[in-house]
C-alpha cells in the first residue's frame, strides 16, 4: 500500500493530468494541504514510485519561463490508480465514525 506522502504525490499528479511535473505538483500539494513539500522529498519519492510502477516519468519540453530547461513530466499508471484507491479506501474505512471524520 502507498505511504501518506506517496498518496499525496499520486493525487497531485492525477489532479494535474497532462500538466503534472515537479514544480506544479509541489505547488498543488503546498496549496491544498498547507504543508511544505521539499524538492528533495518530491524527487526521491517520485523515483521510488516509478520503481514500483505507480507513476511513469519522461522528459518534457523546455520552456522559457523555466530558463529553457526541460520538465520531468509525471503520469499515474493504472497500477497507481489502483494503489491510490486502496489507500483512500483504507483511510475512509478507518475514519468512519470518528469525530474528526464527520466535520
Amino acid at each position: 500500500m502507498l505511504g501518506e506522502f506517496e498518496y499525496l504525490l499520486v493525487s497531485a499528479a492525477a489532479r494535474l493530468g497532462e500538466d503534472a511535473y515537479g514544480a506544479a505538483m509541489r505547488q498543488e500539494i503546498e496549496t491544498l494541504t498547507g504543508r511544505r513539500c521539499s524538492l528533495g522529498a518530491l524527487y526521491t519519492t517520485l523515483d521510488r514510485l516509478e520503481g514500483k510502477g505507480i507513476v511513469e516519468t519522461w522528459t518534457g519540453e523546455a520552456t522559457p519561463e523555466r530558463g529553457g530547461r526541460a520538465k520531468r513530466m509525471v503520469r499515474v499508471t493504472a497500477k497507481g490508480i489502483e494503489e491510490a484507491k486502496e489507500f483512500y479506501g483504507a483511510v475512509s474505512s478507518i475514519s468512519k465514525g470518528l469525530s474528526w471524520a464527520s466535520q
Partner: protein
Amino acid sequence: MKRICWQLAQLLSEALEPAEREAVLGDVFEQGKLFGSLRDVFGLVVRRQANLWMAWRPWAVAALLVVPSAFLLAFHSAHTSGSSAITFWPYLNNWDWNLLNLPAFRHDFPKFLLDVLLNGYIPLGCCSWVFRISGRSRFGTRSSVPSSVVLLLRGVRPGRRAATYFLRGQQQSSERTGLRATVLSRHSACHRLPVAGALAGAFGHAAWRAVAATLPNLPAWAVDRCAGFVRADGLASDLQLPRVAAFSRAGLSATGFRLAFPTALPGLLADFLLGRSHLSSSKKDAHRMKTTILLLVTITLAAAADAPTVSAQLQPPEERRPLPDFAVQDARGKKITMKKYRGHVVLLDFWATWCHGCKEEIP
C-alpha cells in the same frame, strides 16, 4: 544576493544526474524563490548521496578496494609532491643561467626533470584526465545515454558488479536499449570524492596550522607530522619560499592530488576490469581510458625498474686518508674531538637547521 543564490544552486546541482539537474533547476527558476530553493537543492543532493550508501556493496568495495589503494597512492603522491618540492627548491632559489654552461648540470637536471615527470606528475596527470572524462558525461541527458554511461549486462561476476555499483552510482532501468541491463552512471560518491578531497586538502593544512598554534603544549613532532600531510606546501611555507610554495601548489603537488589521487585508482581498475564486458556509448572514451591505464601501468613499471638501488662504493683501503683532527661542540656545549673516536666507525652528517629533509634523516 539572488544571483549568488542562483549560482550556488547551480553549483550544488552539479552533484545530480544531468536529467534531474535540468528538471530541478527548471523548477527552481520557475518558482523564483531562490533562497528556499537553495535549501531544496541541497536537501536533494544529500538524499541522493545518502542513497548511494544504503546497500552493502558500496561499503564492501570501499573496505576492500578503495581504502587499500588509497593508502598505496597516498604514499606515492606524498612522496612525489614532497621530494620534488625539496629537490626543486635549491634550483629555484639559487637559479643562475650560468648553470647551463656546466656539463654536470646539463646532464643531471634533465634527468631529474624526466624522473619527476615519469614517476610523479604524469601518473597524476593521467588520473586527472580520467576525471575530465567523467566530468564531461554530466552534460548528457536522459533521452540520450551520457558518454560515459556503461551498460553492465547481467551475468557478470559479482565482484565486478559490486565495484561498478560503487564506482558508477545509482542504477536506472534502461528503456532506451530494451536490454535487460542495468545502466550505471559515473556520477557516484566515488567520483565526487576527489572534489571534496581537493577542497579538504587545500584548507586542511592551513586549518591544522591555525589549530596547532592555539595548543601550547602540542609536541613539535605532532605539528610537523600532521602538517606533513601536505608536506610540500608546508615545507615551502616554513622556509618562506613563495616561489617553491607556488610551484608545489601549481605543479599538481600536494594538497588536491594527495587526496584526489587515491580515489582515482579504483575508477581506473573498474574501467580496466570492465573493459571487455561493457558497452560504452562512446568508443573514444573507452579507448582513452584504456590508453590512460596502459600509460599508467607502463610508467609504474618503468619507475619500479628504475628505482634507485643502494650502491655503497667504498674507497679501497690503500686510497683512504686519515680524517684531519678537528673539534666541535655538542648540544650541551661539551667539546668533542675526532681524536677521541680514532679506530671507531664515525658517520659525519652535514646538515642545517633550515633543511627539513636533513632533519628527517637524523635517527
